[in-house]
């Protein structure tokens, strides 16, 4: 019995060993054909599960699509690009572990991510320790306001979107607003900026309510808001709770206009809220209705090309989150092509900071030593939901 056990162990070890050797040989062969040099290694920390799963998944789709396109065209500087994906489960603690793994084990040159503001901020210590540049796809202002020379950002931060949205409200005569925001990093960031900016924009905040990611009924918060009789309700979050807010408002017979954040520009919101989504307004970039770019412009051509290829690959047009990921990947790839001399995390960071006039989906990016977002209000338009789709709200 004991003898047989030992024999079995030997066989298993031999089998594993030969598999390993075969695997290594395969790996070598894979690297030697195509291009001679080693590929550039890029890490991506995405929320593929959890509250932001609906954001992280299109982000991954966009990066995969673009990486495949660039590699098919021969890569950058004759070297392919290899992307390593890690899921953070919409959990800041897991995001830290994911970033550490990418840095320690995969030896990446740069990290794209994270999806959410809380996760983006959480991985800073890892980024700083390794000196690796980070391009975030989260829209919290804190990502670039709390300045870190290593951290860049592709979405329009709240400090741009909030004043734009408040201006749009004022222009429509909606000056008394009730605020409902979620308790995530993004919602809290938006809440603070709205409260700070409201007075300057001629807007009065008459009620402030919060909701937790995962909440399933907001009638209690909305009943409080109803009592304050606002002209409009401003909602700042990026999860599935948005549809519940819209439906609960309909249930309570509230006719108050509902205005949201770019985080609500998802077709799942329209599906989930159904008839209650009609008339919902939010500010976001131009990718949802590309005609807003101006049909002869360079951004229109870039967006149209991306939309066509994305739709062909995944059967659905890209949303704003796919656009943020396209931009983040583009920023890194563009910088890789401009690095002079050795490509190291440090030289890549310097190249990213010199990004200038780079046309992406979310806007035209120009970074500087003091501005790591590089977008302005000009990139935003106001949308309205009409007949289950987005139209420009003129």
């Amino acid at each position, binding site marked *: 019995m004991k003898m047989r056990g030992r024999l079995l162990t030997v066989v298993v070890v031999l089998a594993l060993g030969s598999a390993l050797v075969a695997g290594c040989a395969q790996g070598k062969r894979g690297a030697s054909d195509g291009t001679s040099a080693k590929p550039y290694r890029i890490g991506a920390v995405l929320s*593929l*599960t*959890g*509250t932001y*799963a*609906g954001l*992280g*998944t299109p982000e991954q789709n966009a990066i995969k699509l673009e990486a495949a396109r660039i590699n098919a065209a021969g890569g950058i500087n004759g070297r392919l690009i290899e992307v390593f994906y890690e899921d953070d489960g919409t959990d800041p603690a897991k995001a830290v572990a994911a970033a550490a793994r990418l840095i320690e084990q995969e030896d990446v040159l740069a990290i794209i991510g994270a999806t959410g503001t809380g996760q983006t901020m959480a991985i800073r210590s890892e980024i700083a320790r390794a000196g690796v540049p980070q391009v975030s796809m989260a829209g919290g202002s804190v990502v670039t306001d709390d300045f870190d020379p290593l951290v860049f950002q592709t979405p329009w931060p709240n400090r741009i979107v909030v004043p734009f949205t408040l201006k749009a409200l004022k222009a429509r005569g909606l000056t008394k607003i009730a605020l409902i925001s979620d*308790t995530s990093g993004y919602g809290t960031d938006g809440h603070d900026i709205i409260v700070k900016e409201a007075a300057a924009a001629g807007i009065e905040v008459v009620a402030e*309510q*919060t*909701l*937790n990611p*995962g909440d*399933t*009924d907001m*009638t*209690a*918060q909305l*009943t*409080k808001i*109803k*009592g304050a009789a606002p002209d409009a309700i401003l909602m700042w979050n990026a999860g*599935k709770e948005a*549809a*519940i807010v819209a*439906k609960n408002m*309909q*249930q*309570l*017979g509230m006719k108050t206009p509902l205005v949201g954040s770019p985080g609500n520009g998802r077709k*799942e919101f329209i*599906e*989930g809220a*159904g008839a209650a989504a009609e008339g919902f307004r939010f500010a976001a970039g131009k990718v949802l209705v590309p005609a807003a770019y101006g049909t002869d412009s360079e951004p229109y051509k870039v967006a149209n090309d991306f939309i066509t290829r994305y739709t062909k690959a995944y059967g659905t047009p890209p949303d704003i989150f796919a656009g943020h990921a396209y931009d983040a990947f583009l920023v890194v790839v563009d910088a890789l092509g401009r690095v002079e001399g050795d490509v190291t995390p440090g030289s890549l960071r310097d190249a990213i900071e010199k990004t200038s006039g780079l046309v992406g989906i979310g806007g035209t990016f120009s970074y500087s030593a003091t501005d790591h977002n590089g977008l302005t209000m000009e990139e935003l338009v106001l949308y309205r939901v009409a007949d289950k789709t987005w139209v420009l709200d003129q």
Partner: protein
Amino acid sequence: MNSAELLQFVASGLQNGAVYALVALGFTLVYASTGIINFAQGEFFMLGGMLAVAGVRAGLPLPFAALASVVLTASIGLLFERVALRPRRDSGPTVLIIITIGGSMVMKSLARHAFGPNELSLPPFSPGVPIVFAGASIDRQVLWIWGLTIVAVVALTFLYSKTKLGRAMRACSLSHDAARLMGIDTARVVMISFGLAAALGALGGVAVAPLTQTAFDVGSRAGLKGFAAAILGGLGNPIAAVVGGLVLGLLESLSVAFISSTYKDAISLVVLLAVLFLRPQGLLGKSRREKV
């Protein structure tokens, strides 16, 4: 605050509370027959909603899809007990509880792969404008949730007190060994209690999906709330689970009304802790004294 607003807060609390109650009933059932906490209970809630959506997308009429989802989830519950738990039933409660945690992760991951990461919508059971009662408006789906909760509680009470199976289940909860000596097939009773618990969780998931949408990851929160409700009421009897659920729901909505929406979860947890300090057996639980 006027009376219509107050009523609206109460309605909101009872709506969430009824869903918590359905999940809590599942915890109570499994606890009664096995003495363990089934941490996969929240995933049964998730499966209920997701499978119903899958049924509707496959072209089944809504009532049939909802029913099929509950039946299918119950079968998954039976299978889970038979395949994952029964082989290790002599390993003690700690091992079994850890197995249920593992089971919940497996179910969640499989659901993500099968249904994708996005939230999915289920049409309402009876579409129409909300019903206005004394100034408070109540969605028609909420009436379904309340109705189904009442039916579930009545059916369970009947099962427990009037049927042979129910008596066998109660006997198991008192002493497995004694029940087995009396000729009760305890393995079968345990398996059935898992099936029933899964069906109740699924019922909650199906009933609430038209209001809230559903996704592969709604199970952990539902499980947490249901568990809190079961503990608050007192593990062991169905009425206590329902009372625990409703009290928890009301606590949350009244926290929003009188204190702050930011702290509503914290407030309900503080009350839960306070109750456990003062009455460790829960609001309605009977204290179990060892008789020597």
